């Protein structure tokens, strides 16, 4: 039985097991039909031309976590941003870990999707927002069909959430191969601010496939900053589907730091449903071996006077492969749109490759849209310049690569997170120099 059949046939049992209301039940039932009809995407589809899921899908995944596992904080502390106070929503093999988490209901809800889906008091929010941003593509639909657990974050009006929220998914390798489908919902109401850090971590060499969906709603003048740390081990693959709906004058940003994992696909979609707002999509990808990272972005400008800023940097060594497919749609009504897109890449080996494709669909006539992609090698004259001043080859390379990624790193608003990312990059480049750029 292949993975698709396995998932479809286990759907009924899953539906009977979990306690949910009729609304959610209907959404899920529709979703499994979509998945059953479409199946997993293949390279024949334009959006998947350069990313094949074949090798990832052939594992015999356990699709539901059977047993609960516990982890000691001291063993996994290094995966947390632990030098600042944060809320934490932590999952182990898809199940909530109250031991590692720190949630709240004090004025804001930072808690679990499973309770939001089953408790009547959350019903109005669920019916208003759940599955209202996600697309009906097969992978998102698959996640929707099995949506049960994940982070539920609801920030009412006029709240500045002082502490960042960390969402971490651990996989323990209790099963020989595990598939996880976390589902997150983030609703940020008028004038509220929130910062979220998300991470997926496989703790063993047993394969893990995560198909995640995150829906984010930024209401009027809300500010949402979302950071994704993708630094998983070589047996973990991630399909991240993130959908952000913004209302007028809101600011939303997603930073994606892709350093690890076997195959990573980021489907990141912004929908601007209001005037005078700003969307930021930034990413740093540094991969080697046979790693593959695919950024598939969409910014949909629907109303006038809005901006979007995309800036993705990639460094590829060994036989690593990258994809950047950035689509910007500017509707006829969306006059005075400013949309910027940049994708710059460095290839450090002859066998590494990047496929980059900007796609602009502009129906308005008074707009500023720019896009640029570059693919290059490290600047040899800069290397000689630095080495002639006494900076060794490896450090000179690292310094150049840091400089290359710097303007993305600069816009990280949480200093401790910025420091951590810098450290991960330094480790990745094999250098230990305290330059603070």
């Amino acid at each position, binding site marked *: 039985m292949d993975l698709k059949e396995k998932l479809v046939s286990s759907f009924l049992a899953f539906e009977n097991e979990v306690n949910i209301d009729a609304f959610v039940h209907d959404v899920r039932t529709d979703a499994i039909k979509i998945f059953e009809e479409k199946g997993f995407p293949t390279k024949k589809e334009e959006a998947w031309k350069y990313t094949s899921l074949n090798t990832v899908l052939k594992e015999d995944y356990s699709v539901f976590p059977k047993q609960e596992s516990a982890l000691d904080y001291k063993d996994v502390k290094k995966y947390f941003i632990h030098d600042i106070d944060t809320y934490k929503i932590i999952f182990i093999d898809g199940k909530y870990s109250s031991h590692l988490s720190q949630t709240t209901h004090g004025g804001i809800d930072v808690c679990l999707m499973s309770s939001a889906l089953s408790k009547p008091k959350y019903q109005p929010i669920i019916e208003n927002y759940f599955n209202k941003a996600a697309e009906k593509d097969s992978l998102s639909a698959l996640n929707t069909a099995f949506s049960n657990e994940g982070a539920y974050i609801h920030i009412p009006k006029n709240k500045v959430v002082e502490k960042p929220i960390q969402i971490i998914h651990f996989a323990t390798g209790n099963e020989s191969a595990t598939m996880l489908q976390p589902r997150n919902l983030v609703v940020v109401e008028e004038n509220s601010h929130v910062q979220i850090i998300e991470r997926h971590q496989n703790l063993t060499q047993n394969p893990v496939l995560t198909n995640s969906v995150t829906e984010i709603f930024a209401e009027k003048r809300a500010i949402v900053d979302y950071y994704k740390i993708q630094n998983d081990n070589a047996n973990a693959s991630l399909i991240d589907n993130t959908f952000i709906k913004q209302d007028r004058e809101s600011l939303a940003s997603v930073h994606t730091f892709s350093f690890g994992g076997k195959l990573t696909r980021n489907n990141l979609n912004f929908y601007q449903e209001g005037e005078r707002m700003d969307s930021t999509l930034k990413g740093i990808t540094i991969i080697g071996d046979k790693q593959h990272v695919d950024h598939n972005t969409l910014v949909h400008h629907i109303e006038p006077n809005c901006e979007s800023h995309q800036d993705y940097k990639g460094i590829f060594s060994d036989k690593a492969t990258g994809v950047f497919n950035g689509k910007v749609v500017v509707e006829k009504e969306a006059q005075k749109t400013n949309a910027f897109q940049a994708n710059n890449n460095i290839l450090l080996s002859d066998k590494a490759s990047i496929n980059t494709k900007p796609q602009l669909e502009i129906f308005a006539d008074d707009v500023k849209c720019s896009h640029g992609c570059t693919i290059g090698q490290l600047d040899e004259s800069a290397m000689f310049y630095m080495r*002639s001043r006494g900076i060794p080859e490896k450090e000179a390379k690292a310094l150049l690569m840091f400089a290359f990624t710097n303007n993305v790193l600069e816009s990280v608003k949480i200093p401790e997170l910025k420091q951590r990312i810098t450290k991960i990059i330094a480790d990745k480049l094999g250098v230990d120099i305290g330059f603070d750029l």
Partner: protein
Amino acid sequence: MLKINNLHASIEDKSILKGINLEVKPGEVHAIMGPNGSGKSTLSSVIAGKEEYEVTEGSIIFDNEDIEELAAEERAHKGVFLSFQYPVEIPGVSVTNFIKTAINESRKARGLEDMPAKDMLKLIREKAELLEIDRKFLSRSLNEGFSGGEKKRNEIFQMAMLEPKLAILDETDSGLDIDALRIVANGVNKLKSKDNAVVVITHYQRLLDYIVPDYVHVLYNGRIVKSGTKELAHELEEKGYDWIKEEVNA
């Protein structure tokens, strides 16, 4: 300090240096002049260790050691400094962080700890003052958007920070107005001592009014064809290079 014997070098099989002999002793200032394309910049790049050039014959001895096989950074750690004719722009790396990294890497190579931040700051302030460099300038990205004069001043600032034994100034006067030229030359002169040496590579005699050489060499077609004292530079300024070419070709 520096002894170059019968040095031949080529790039992509094109022979550029065809048997250079040069000896520089501590405390000396040498000027290397010559028409365009004579091999001046190649000579400075080869001494500094640029890998694109292949040394096909001869040797470069620095402090009694053959440095021909050493990487550029290793030569720098031993005290070789090249001021670039065209300093490279490195966006995203500030002048301060660059020089800090360079100094601490050199110290590491010599088995020393990083320079304490306080000392580093003091040193930076001192040397910036010497070159009349504004503090704001130090936090800018290295050479990015710098004027010609700023780039060259920044080169000499780095030289002042690194305190090399041998400084090679490749066309440091190009792109400088007279005020910047004076500041740069003044910086170089203040750094001069009986223990270090300077090789000035230049097309024109102008800089040599400020940095006065003990010896002047004329490079033509990959060879040093004439050596003399500073009067030779004046003669070249007056008469140009044609008479040298004629002498050689005859």
